[in-house]
């Protein structure tokens, strides 16, 4: 939310109310304030099509509000009629009558000469995993499997450390070119990928997931994504062709260790 835009719109409306505006000005002010909030009030921009939809609803609402009362109709119509008929408004009227069609013509021109936009595809951050996957003839249940080596963290720190070291080697032999040294998706090839590699530092990624989910994404890569969960042009390889199961589980340990995140299931045990 963009607090300043919203506060500004509310303050402007309140100030205006105190000055007892005419019904037309009041309705117009509401329309502008609503537009400002819908268009600029959100940190993540609302798509133009959605803005249009909302403004259509708001316009209909304002029209309905005006039409429910004869006095309001009169208040709105009077200045409009005066603008159209009185002599002192002749020049502004002429200008308005030319400006409106010119605006439409310009929007047609802009639409027809716009550079083509590559088709955009939605990215599913956490695509729905299958119940189980088969990796190197072993079946792994995504819903229930835990990292088989996670327990070592408490039972045998030395063995756990050795697995982390192996995970680190696997990461730097295979992953860091894209996912980066900082694991923020900033590897030296990240700029050349479309879609860009996932940031593991982002609290919305691996911190929200169980280790078996990561194992699935690593083992099956982009080719293993379900039909209903993109990105379908992802360059993520199916690493099961190149890595052992142990190496994949080890690199999962390393991802959590390096970023300081905890996998979801383990946190729930505490």
């Amino acid at each position, binding site marked *: 939310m963009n607090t300043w835009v919203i506060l500004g719109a509310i303050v402007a409306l309140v100030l205006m109310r105190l000055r007892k505006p005419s019904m037309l000005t009041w309705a117009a002010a509401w329309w502008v304030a609503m537009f400002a909030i819908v268009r600029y009030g959100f940190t993540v921009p609302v798509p133009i099509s959605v803005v249009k939809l909302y403004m259509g609803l708001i316009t209909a609402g304002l029209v309905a509000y005006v039409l429910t009362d004869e006095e309001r109709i009169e208040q709105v119509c009077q200045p409009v*009629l*005066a603008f159209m008929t009185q002599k002192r408004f002749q020049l502004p009227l002429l200008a308005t009558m030319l400006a409106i069609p010119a605006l439409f013509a310009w929007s047609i021109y802009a639409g027809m000469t716009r550079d083509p936009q590559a088709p955009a595809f939605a990215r599913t951050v956490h695509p729905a995993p299958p119940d189980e996957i088969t990796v190197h003839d072993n079946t792994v249940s995504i819903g229930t499997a835990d990292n088989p080596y996670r327990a070592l963290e408490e039972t045998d720190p030395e063995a756990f450390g050795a697995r982390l070291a192996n995970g680190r080697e696997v990461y730097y032999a295979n992953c860091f070119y894209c996912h980066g040294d*900082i694991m923020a998706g900033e590897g030296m090839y990240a*700029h050349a990928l479309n879609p860009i590699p996932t940031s593991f530092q982002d609290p919305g990624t691996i911190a929200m997931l169980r280790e078996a989910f990561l194992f699935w994404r690593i083992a099956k890569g*982009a080719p293993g994504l379900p039909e209903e969960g993109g990105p379908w042009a992802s360059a993520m390889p199916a690493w099961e062709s*190149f890595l052992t199961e142990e*190496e994949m589980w080890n690199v999962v340990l390393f991802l959590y260790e390096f970023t300081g995140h905890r996998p979801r299931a383990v946190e729930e045990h505490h």
Partner: protein
Amino acid sequence: MRVPGRQDCGRCCSGVRWMGALVLVLGVALFGTATAARGQDLESGKVTYDKYCAQCHGDEGDGQGIATPYLRPEPRDFTSGKYKVRTTPTGLLPTDADISRTIRLGFPYTGMPAFRENVITDGELADLVAYVKSFAPAFAEQEPPEPITIPQPPPYDPEHASTKGREVYESTGCGACHGTLGRGNGASAPTLVDDWNVPVRVADLTKPWTFRGGGTRIDIFRTMSTGFAGTPMPGFHGALPPEDIWAITDYMLWLSGGPQERVEAPYSNVVTARATSEVIDLAAAEDLFADAPPALFPLFGQIVEPGRSFYPAANAIQIQAVYNRDEIAFRLVWHDMRAETAGVNAPDLAVPSWNEQLAEAGASSAEDDPWGAPADDPWGADAAEDPWGDDAVDEEAAADPWGDDVVDEDGGDDFWGEAGDGSDAAGGEFSDAVALQFPQQAPEGVRKPYFIFGDAQNPVDLWFADMAKQEAELWTGRGSLAVVPGESELPEVVSSYEDGAWVVLMKRARTSRSSISFEPESFVPIAFSVWDGFNRERGNKRALSAWWDLYLEPLERPSPLPPMAKAFFGILALEILIVGFVRWRRRRRATGATTESPAAQAA
């Protein structure tokens, strides 16, 4: 954190009794971290180093980390005290600020990322710099060096840059390595090695966004003045007057279209094919392409499947496209250090496995790695266990982490190929090549074929042009394992190499029954591969791109004027009708009823 300054501060604050505990806490928070302790705490520096730096630069700072085999240029050996980007004259140590700058901004297009404040705080950075310096005895032995002063830059003048700048560039000998037009194709470019005898690639001066030391005017002036220690790039501070260094700087910027406010790669994500009514003749197509908008796409190494290419030669390719009712044509341009027009190339050539190369280079051994039993490893040396059936390995006695090319013939130590000693300058075993990749059929849903030569369900077609031949080939890929000669229409090709740039024109019928058709006003996924024969790239060892989009503009681009006029006059007429009606009603009412009304004035 162990900061001695905190205790001092605590003592001093507690002496001021009337301010009490709150002020003490505040004092620690505000001043504790800003005391002289920062930049001296080697232990804190080591913690940061071990987490973020040791993977590449090694636990001992010798540049031999676990990631080193995958990186060219190699991570810097800090024990040498040689730092690439400095503000100090050639031969001197860098300042602390120089080291900090490199850590903060990184080196673009290398394995050195930018570590910003959200990853390494200013305090941690100071400690890290101290720790990194502790690897080289020279820092303790020598006085801190004085940085050069960079004079006020003269105004940039394209005319001056392209004449005087070029003159100084040439007379200084920059072209010998960087090439006359700065494309990294100077005559000696293929022979260059750094102080550790590792081959280095000459900077392509037309791409300032790839400059290690930064691509602004000031950055380039500094690099020109102080050079890159440890590499063949000399510093000209003291050797050339500042105005000459500015002239060369500006010539370099002129090559890439002048100085930019922000140095950013001008990459596109869609290329638009211009419609034309003319016949497309590749032998005389330069005029046809003059109006087609160029799009630059980034390339990267094929680092996944066997034949892994960790240091491909090409990092970008420019494409233009035109089409008429019958045909579609593409113009591809990329920079190449040297044209390889002899030898062979094809997308299905076998490439030795990476682990084979590593193992023979002695960079990794099975004993070191309790989990990486080579027999289980598809990249491993054991061909029988290799799912990709990589039989080429046996013939090649390779010790080359990028490929297999260590010079059986030359007996040298040249990772670049055969030409290092100039004995085989005419070209080697493998020719340069390029390929356009399209899905064989337009994707019906959202899923595209896997970008590395397609997949079993979604085949791709490759329009392949081997620079050793004057005819194109068609290949069909169903994954890296299954690249076979294609069966649909062959594209035509014309290629040429000049001043460090390959220019390749390709065309084919616009529609096809067994391969993809290019329909006006539609988007078609497009991807690229570039093979540098000199870098011994062939088969799956190559530079490649992700999927991007090709858009065919309408065959006849309609003029926007008629619909604009229609909308304008239509709406205007409607307005006149409304206003006229309102006025007519008012007038009638005013004359009909003589009562006073506001509308009466209007008439």
